[in-house]
């Protein structure tokens, strides 16, 4: 949970009591009474936690497991004996033996009133809303039997919907001021786009000077979309254009699918998190009408080779040539949210980034050049779609410099949620489909590409390749599992000693190869501060993903999200990975083939720089 101490003065922080270290000590456990049931809970547990542990349901709206406590929506009120007013259970730590009633007449009526009041300011046009049937406000009103609009209803939209951003849409007509987006943006991601402005009944959620989203410093990570309980924030949906391209017989529509959506799309069809539906998804995409279904993991392998070669080149320059202008550590550049973050907040450190494009953009460039050549298709007739867990990918594919092939490398970025919608529109129930593989010529990808989806995955994949390139041996870990890269700690750090290296890399003999993995831009900020203070001089490689948990927690993934759900998705990805025949990027035969046929000079050559590498823009923090 993010630390709010920095942001709010103590007087404004929710009242919190630390749980005692020793629960058996006197006063460690407190017996309370919830609805005639006597239970004993650790000191400092909130009423909400106590009730949930004892299977007593309390509705919530502004509460989210990833975010700090706000206590603003009041939906979770309960009656506490001896208290004059109802108390918000999410922000009430238990410090004394109390009696709680969670469903008395007073509580029921108050909750209904609160929900009615929330609805009175909400432009509820449920059939035409992206969040229909996945809306927490809708669920709450069903739960509390809302049958009339007692306090009125917003019939016509009041605010203009902000469609300015390529990734996000902000519709303040549906906002119920729960402030989850604020806590996500400021506390969880530390980007700071949204905040509440004005006061009292004039309160609104707004950007700086109410500017459109494309003008403020938004990194398009989409974490706010994942946490918005209503349809006030959602991603910019290109599915109509994609349907049009599919229906056009002239167009050759190809789709590349990233690893994370495959591990999560089952959730859109009622499955519990942690089921991977890769083969079924391939069939579904072909049935929808995509002409070719490719695997982004293939270019993830390509990314590893390009990025790995770049790293080795930098290391050589730094160690052998003693070149002091070489920037180390090298930072990964796969996450478009992170790229925009560093462009805005640390423009002076852009040289540390790898120049390799993200797998999505590499694939786009390959499809409209190599693939078009080989298949004899005019690249202008190819429509290249990418299925991504990410809303920032929409921004990335619209970047002006991403046209190495002479066309838009990737035409549309599609998120998991939007694809699930398209699959439903096509009348398909995904989990029951027959299985099928990816299409040639990029039909096979390695497991190393697959684990890109989880935080630490890029690092793990890179290590497998770089270590083997340098020493000629496999990484010294059981079953290629580099545990130091896995897990959900904010910043992970580890090292591998390079010994008995191949003669070509003799300059790396005895080097302690140190790497770092961070996920979520709040952690990225900490890493960048370390870099600024010069404390990263002994680190060689840093992986950063803009979203908590890596791509599998991305802004285009199914809603809801929580750490537990993200862990399950990671489990699904790692399990699928272990079953693959090829698990190292450099062993992927198609990658070898593409270097032989298309880029004969190998990674980081002139042609590869033209197609597979990019440059960054110093954006800075100033909002015009």
């Amino acid at each position, binding site marked *: 949970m993010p630390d709010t101490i*920095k*942001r709010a*003065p103590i007087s404004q922080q929710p009242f919190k009591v630390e749980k005692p270290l020793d629960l058996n000590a006197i006063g460690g456990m407190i017996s309370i009474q919830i609805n005639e049931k006597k239970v004993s809970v650790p000191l400092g547990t909130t009423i909400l936690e106590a009730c949930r542990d004892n299977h007593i349901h309390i509705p919530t709206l502004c509460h989210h497991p990833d975010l700090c406590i706000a206590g603003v929506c009041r939906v979770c009120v309960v009656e506490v004996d001896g208290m004059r007013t109802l108390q918000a259970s999410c922000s009430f730590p238990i410090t004394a033996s109390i009696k709680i009633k969670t469903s008395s007449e007073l509580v029921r009526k108050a909750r209904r009133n609160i929900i009615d009041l929330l609805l009175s300011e909400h432009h509820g046009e449920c059939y035409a809303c992206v969040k229909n049937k996945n809306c927490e406000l809708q669920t709450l009103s069903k739960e509390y039997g809302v049958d009339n609009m007692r306090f009125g209803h917003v019939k016509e939209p009041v605010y203009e919907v902000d469609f300015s951003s390529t990734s996000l849409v902000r519709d303040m007509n549906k906002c119920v001021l729960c402030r989850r987006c604020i806590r996500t943006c*400021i506390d969880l991601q530390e*980007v*700071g*786009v*949204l*905040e*509440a*402005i*004005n*006061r009292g009944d004039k309160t609104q959620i*707004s*950007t*700086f*000077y109410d500017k459109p989203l494309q003008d*403020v410093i938004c990194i398009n990570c989409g974490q706010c979309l994942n946490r918005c309980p209503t349809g006030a924030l959602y991603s910019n949906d290109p599915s109509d254009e994609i349907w049009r391209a599919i229906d056009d017989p002239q167009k050759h529509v190809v789709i590349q699918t990233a690893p994370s959506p495959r591990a999560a799309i089952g959730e859109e069809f009622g499955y519990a998190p942690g089921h991977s539906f890769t083969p079924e998804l391939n069939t579904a995409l072909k049935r929808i009408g995509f002409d070719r279904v490719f695997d982004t993991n293939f270019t993830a392998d390509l990314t590893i080779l390009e990025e790995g070669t770049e790293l080795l080149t930098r290391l050589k320059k730094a160690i052998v040539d003693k070149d002091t202008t070489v920037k180390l550590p090298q930072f990964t550049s796969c996450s478009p949210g992170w790229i925009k973050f560093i462009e805005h907040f640390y423009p002076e450190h852009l040289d540390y980034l790898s120049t390799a494009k993200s797998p999505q953009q590499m694939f786009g460039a390959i499809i409209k050049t190599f693939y078009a050549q080989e298949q004899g298709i005019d690249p202008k007739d190819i429509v290249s779609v990418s299925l991504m867990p990410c809303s920032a990918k929409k921004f990335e594919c619209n970047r002006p410099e991403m046209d190495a092939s002479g066309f838009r490398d990737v035409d549309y970025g599609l998120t998991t949620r939007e694809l699930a919608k398209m699959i439903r529109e096509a009348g398909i129930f995904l989990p029951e489909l027959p299985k099928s593989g990816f299409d040639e010529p990029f039909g096979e990808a390695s497991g190393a590409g697959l684990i890109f989806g989880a935080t630490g995955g890029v690092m793990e994949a890179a290590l497998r390749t770089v270590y083997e390139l340098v020493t000629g041996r496999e990484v010294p870990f059981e079953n290629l599992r580099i545990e130091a890269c896995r897990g959900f700690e904010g910043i992970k750090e580890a090292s591998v000693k390079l010994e008995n290296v191949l003669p070509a890399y003799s300059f790396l003999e005895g080097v302690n190869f140190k790497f770092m993995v961070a996920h979520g831009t709040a952690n990225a900020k900490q890493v960048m501060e370390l870099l600024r203070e010069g404390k990263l001089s002994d680190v060689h490689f840093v992986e950063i993903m803009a979203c908590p948990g890596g791509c599998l927690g991305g802004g285009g993934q199914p809603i809801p999200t929580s750490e537990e759900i993200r862990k399950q998705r990671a489990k699904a990805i790692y399990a699928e990975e272990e079953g693959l025949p090829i698990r190292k990027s450099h062993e992927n035969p198609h990658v070898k083939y593409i270097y032989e046929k298309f880029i004969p000079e190998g990674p980081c050559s002139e042609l590869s720089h033209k197609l597979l590498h990019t440059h960054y823009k110093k954006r800075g*923090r*100033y*909002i015009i």
Partner: protein
Amino acid sequence: MLVYEKNSLSEEIELLIERFGKDRVALLPILQIIEKRHNYISEFAQQEVARLLDIHPVEVYSVVSFYNFLHRYPQGKNIVRLCKTISCDMAGKQEIEKALKRELGINFDETTRDKKWTLEYTSCLGMCDQGPAMLVNDKIYTKLDPETAVKILNDTK
């Protein structure tokens, strides 16, 4: 905003940061001084304060929009705030309202063209027994009638 104006504003804010410390609790005093000197807190000033205090511009904007005595847009040199609460209303606020509007030639929440006067409503000034009341800059005037209100404006000029 012109470049040299921006530079002098940056310098001014840097001095204020030196005085109040580089901490987010210094935000309000800094904003108050900028408001006092410039009659409003410009977009650029808000971003500078945010940059120097290492917080987000939108947080500064949020604070500025929360308080009625901090302004986001340029205000007149003098600000007239007429109490809008019920006891002043019953004591004859409407008359004062009309007189002020007529004298300055603007509506409430507007600023005169010469940037001298801004007219605003305010919540209770605590002068309910002496209504109607108004606040001109930081001086309070009570038991107003249209003539005295206009006279006060002329005297303040």
